[in-house]
């Protein structure tokens, strides 16, 4: 078991580092978008030099100066020439490979994920994200705790009343809610409850508003996030429970003299939980990535919204993109790790990757 845990953990770390490496290298190949304001740009280039991504030198040679001034020299990609009357201050990026190692070093030693360039110029990326992580995580956790009981309850109901009207209605509902894209669902909910009926706020309430609006403002995004998940969990619970309900040990339990309720609660439920627990952990990841679009629709100031802003066309904020995607990647892969481990812990029959 220990060996299995170690192998899985190392493997997940390998995947995380591969993904982050890939992301960093490929984004660095694209043209940079430094801050638009002059002051911010000066600070940005100074910081690029002090963080070790660029070199700075002064070009005093009048011949080269003139050539640069008249655009006879081609400016290398992502380099910056600052005209200082009779000389050029030249900032040039070092090679992507060396930038990569500097980047890793900065993160490991200083927890320096770089600075935002366009969204909030020269603010550390981690600070930008830190102020928004709270909203995103809170929303997703509320959605998680909202959808699990409902999904379980509907799934159990459907399985126990298999092939009845209730089951058919639930199954049809599952089919519908699992198919409709979450953003379509969210838009329709917003249109119905926000605009037509005017029951709920049409925008996420800002943090300085107090009172019941903070609560009512959560209803729509939580609903929008969890409809698909409820449907998924219901379907899975139903499938697992029906399978267990037809198994021999349940027949044995009944023949022993247990009532149907007893046998279902003590034997069937427990056994059907085995694949459900990991799937619930895994669903957190899909909730999280689904919340990007919900945040956009409902104006929620979370990490997803910041990601979309950092991806504004021709105003890309690469450091922020890197930071946000790293946030999503790390949370996602830790959830995967947790799923793998929980499989191993919950069901001793499964020991993936481990030698007998």
């Amino acid at each position, binding site marked *: 078991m220990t060996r299995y845990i170690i192998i899985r953990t190392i493997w997940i770390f390998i*995947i995380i580092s*591969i*993904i982050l490496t*890939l*992301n960093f290298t*490929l*984004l660095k*190949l*694209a043209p940079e978008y430094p801050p638009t304001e002059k002051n911010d740009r000066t600070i940005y280039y100074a910081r690029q030099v002090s963080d070790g991504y660029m070199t700075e030198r002064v070009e005093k040679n009048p011949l080269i100066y003139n050539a640069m001034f008249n655009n006879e020299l081609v400016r290398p990609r992502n380099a910056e020439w600052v005209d200082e009357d009779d000389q050029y201050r030249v900032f040039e990026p070092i090679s992507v490979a060396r930038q990569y190692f500097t980047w890793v070093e900065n993160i490991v030693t200083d927890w320096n994920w770089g600075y935002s360039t366009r969204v909030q110029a020269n603010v550390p990326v981690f600070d930008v994200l830190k102020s928004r992580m709270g909203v995103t995580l809170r929303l997703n956790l509320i959605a998680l705790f909202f959808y699990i009981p409902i999904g379980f309850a509907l799934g159990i109901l459907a399985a126990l009343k298999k092939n009845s009207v209730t089951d058919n209605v639930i199954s*049809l509902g599952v*089919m*519908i809610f*699992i*198919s*409709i*894209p979450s*953003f*379509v669902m969210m*838009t*329709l909910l*917003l*249109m119905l409850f*926000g*605009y*037509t009926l005017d029951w709920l706020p*049409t925008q996420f309430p800002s943090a300085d508003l107090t009172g019941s609006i903070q609560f009512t403002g959560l209803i729509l995004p939580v609903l929008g996030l969890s409809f698909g998940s409820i449907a998924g969990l219901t*379907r*899975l619970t139903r*499938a697992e429970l*029906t*399978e267990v309900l037809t198994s021999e040990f349940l027949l044995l339990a009944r023949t022993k003299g247990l009532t149907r309720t007893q046998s279902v609660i003590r034997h069937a439920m427990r056994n059907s939980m085995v694949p459900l627990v990991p799937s619930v952990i895994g669903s957190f990841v899909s909730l999280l*990535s689904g919340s*990007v*679009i919900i945040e*956009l*629709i409902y104006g929620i100031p979370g990490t997803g919204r910041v*990601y*979309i802003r950092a*991806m504004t*066309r021709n105003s*890309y904020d*690469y450091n922020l*993109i890197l930071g*946000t*995607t790293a946030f*999503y*990647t790390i949370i*996602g*892969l830790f959830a*995967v790790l947790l799923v793998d481990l929980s499989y191993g812990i919950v069901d001793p029959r499964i020991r993936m990757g481990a030698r007998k």
Partner: protein
Amino acid sequence: MADKNIKYENIDKSQFQFVQDEKKIFDKKFETKPIGYFKDAMMRFAKNKTNLTASIILLTLILLSVFVPIFSTKNAEKLEETLSYLPPRIPYLEDIGIADGTKMRYDQPVDPSTIDPETGLGLPYSTLPKYIDMSTLENYYGGCTGKDAQCVGGQNEIMKDNNKTGAIIRSNTWLSFSKIYSSKIVIDVYNISDEANSKLLVQVGPIAGQYVTIGEITAPGVYTFDPYLDNPTLPASGKIQLRYETEDINLRASLNSVSIVSETEDASEADQLKYNYSVSGYELSQYQLVSEVILNDEEEIIASYSGTYVRANGLRLMSSFRVDAYAEVFGDKFQLAFPASEYDKLMAEYADVCIQMEDPDNPDGWLFPEGCPIVKVNFENESVFVPGKGDQFSYNLVLNYQIYAGYEEIPYFFFGTSAAGKDMVKLIFIGLRTSLLIGLLVAVINITIGVIYGAISGYYGGQIDIIMERFAEIIGRIPWLVTLSIFIALIGPGIETLIYVMVVSGWIGVASVTRTQFYRYKGREYVLASRTLGAKDARLIFRHILPNGIGTIITSSILMVPALIFTEATLSYLGFGIGHGQSFSILGINMSGVSIGVLLSDGRNQLRQNPHLTLFPAIVISILMITFNMFGNALRDAFNPALRGSE
């Protein structure tokens, strides 16, 4: 059971007979048709009525997406601004009040002169009263920031610009002060804080070209200042100037009112008016921003003032009402300057109907009988000289848009029209066609890659399999946000990015199904037999193993199509996929950049005003996804009954 046993206890031997008597029947053909694999599957498929219905609906949608764009005569290509945002209008349904071509308008400023004293309701500036459903008219106060007289109440906020010392506002009229009536200046400050050395200086002047400070405010409240206290020489008329200084650009001073109060109880009415003055809300917003730079003796800048001055928390009387949008668009339209050349063209075209008649009410204009695109001409405008074109003549007239645009009757737009005045029905089905084609194309790419990858991985097994599996896992674990950001940064939004993002991790599911199928079939006897006969790997893979597994692979990948449509819609909705104005060609069919996701994205900011922009694409994509998923599930259940129930 007992009954049956008794019943058949002793059956006489003569009751039995041989089915066949020494006849060999192994060569005989079946009397009924044999049920093959596909027929069996079809029977299972047709048995489930719900899924069958879903499949029929799906087929209808697909057929509509093929034929509607071809046969619909409505416009979905060119911009027709007049027809923009028409609500849905459907024959017969309109008679019972659904989709009757009316729509709600919100937040339309009210014209105060039209307020009815009985009901207290005012009419909006924007819409002619004859198109408004008066029973739905409501007036309410809404927030405003405008600097006009209809925006009442609220405060006015002063903010400084970046790198400035502060901002200055000054009254734009000359005000009267009086020493005799002991005039005082009263400033009501709604909000200010003393953080970052913030202060509001109250100044009067000009005294010898300078404004002198008579007071300083650092906290909210009502302040009274005596302008004569330090400045006995203050002239009888001057201006009030407020100088706001702060070190933090995010801070602001918020003002309620500025007044001059004088002790004029005994004075004449004219003096009372002259020496008492108060401005708040709209009037206060008319104060002007003044830029100022203060230099020291060496001509260096020691302070500079510039900023912004905005309205906050103002209220405006708004109205909401239901408007007959079709009647409004196709009815009579007032034209300020209708070009004379256009007028002459219409006159020539409608020469037989457009007979000029005298207007008894208006000697400058003339009337036309019914059926003419021009209802009446109010007067001919003075000619305008345009360089290079000479004098341009125009008319002030009323135009009947329906006849002018050549509609015999007011058209029906079943799902309404888009911002560009295009028919939503046609747009939705064009979008659906694009979505379906992209979905199919990417599915084919994914299945091809997946099958090849899975076949190699499953057929060779061992080390190759382990490495390939690990590689697939890494690729599959990349979050879509990462893939998306990489392609957006390197290529930019568009169809290419869309396809790449969907292909990068899309093939992995197919690969794993194929791999399982290969593990299942590669050890079979017929494979071994073929191998011993000298068949090469490629032959074994493509002629023996793959054909056996392909049914399962295809049926399990059919669900990929709705998933891909889902992704396409999501990305286009976020603005990272295709968009208006793009055109590309798939399988020889030229596509405009309209997909369901694009249409939904268009409607995103119009949820309140124009819900039809979102509602219909949302319903169509929902139906498509639901029926496609049901069809996929049904197909898989029919071909692999063993998989039924396990989703």
